[in-house]
């Protein structure tokens, strides 16, 4: 009988996108962002914004950067719900509600912040509001600046959920 680990995160690399192996939404975002100059970056982001999550470039304690924007159609909003994505009175930075997922996903953000877009696949169990799910998704993380001269950087995350099953 085949067995598989509960959590599997692997980098597929941007070559996989260039070979046409990625989800069309990931390919479209990657192609658009790679063919845009820094002056036009905001216009490039605009059509994809509903599907993106945005986070800072700070990784305190090697944790993924805190999220500040969760697009209306984004995979994270779909997965974790409206209450998580749009807290009425945010008391602290937004993080995914599963600590194991946080830990496993950090490497992708680190690589993106080092300067190369990160494209990878993940299959993992997550806990949301006391319920256990198995989720498989691919994700593209790109570090960008809001303008050519800006000192600021932030990460744009596009996650596409391929499979989601409740296990409890």
């Amino acid at each position, binding site marked *: 009988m085949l067995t598989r680990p509960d959590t599997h995160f692997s980098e597929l690399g941007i070559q996989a996108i260039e070979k046409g192996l990625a989800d069309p939404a990931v390919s479209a975002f990657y192609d658009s962002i790679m063919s845009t100059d820094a002056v036009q970056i905001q216009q490039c982001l605009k059509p994809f*914004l509903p599907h993106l999550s945005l986070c*800072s470039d700070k990784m305190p304690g090697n944790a993924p950067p805190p999220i500040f924007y969760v697009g209306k159609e984004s995979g994270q909003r779909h997965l974790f719900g409206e209450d998580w994505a749009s*807290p*009425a*009175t*945010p008391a602290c*930075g937004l993080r995914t509600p599963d600590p194991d997922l946080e830990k496993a996903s950090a490497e992708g953000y680190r690589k993106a912040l080092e300067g190369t877009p990160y494209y990878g696949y993940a299959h993992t169990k997550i806990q949301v509001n006391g319920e256990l799910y198995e989720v498989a998704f691919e994700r593209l993380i790109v570090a960008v600046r809001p303008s050519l001269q800006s*000192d600021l950087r932030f990460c744009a995350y596009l996650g596409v959920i391929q499979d989601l099953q409740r296990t409890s």
Partner: protein
Amino acid sequence: MHYEFLKRLEGYVPEHVRPVTRAPEKIAPVELKAAIDDANLTEMWDMILTLDYSVSDPTDLSPEKRDEFLNVMSLLLKAFDR
């Protein structure tokens, strides 16, 4: 006598009044914008306001949308907290 009776009622809470659990205080929009500017995050404020909300001033938004935008900006401030 009547006055003394009323004084004793001052601490009375009618039983149909539910105790209020206070949510964290919301920062006023003007103070939030000042904090965003101080943190050098003005570009991000402008970018999200323009790209997602299609206005240049939050006062042009409906109250619900304005609250939503300001909550995103509160998260932005915390996400870049050093």
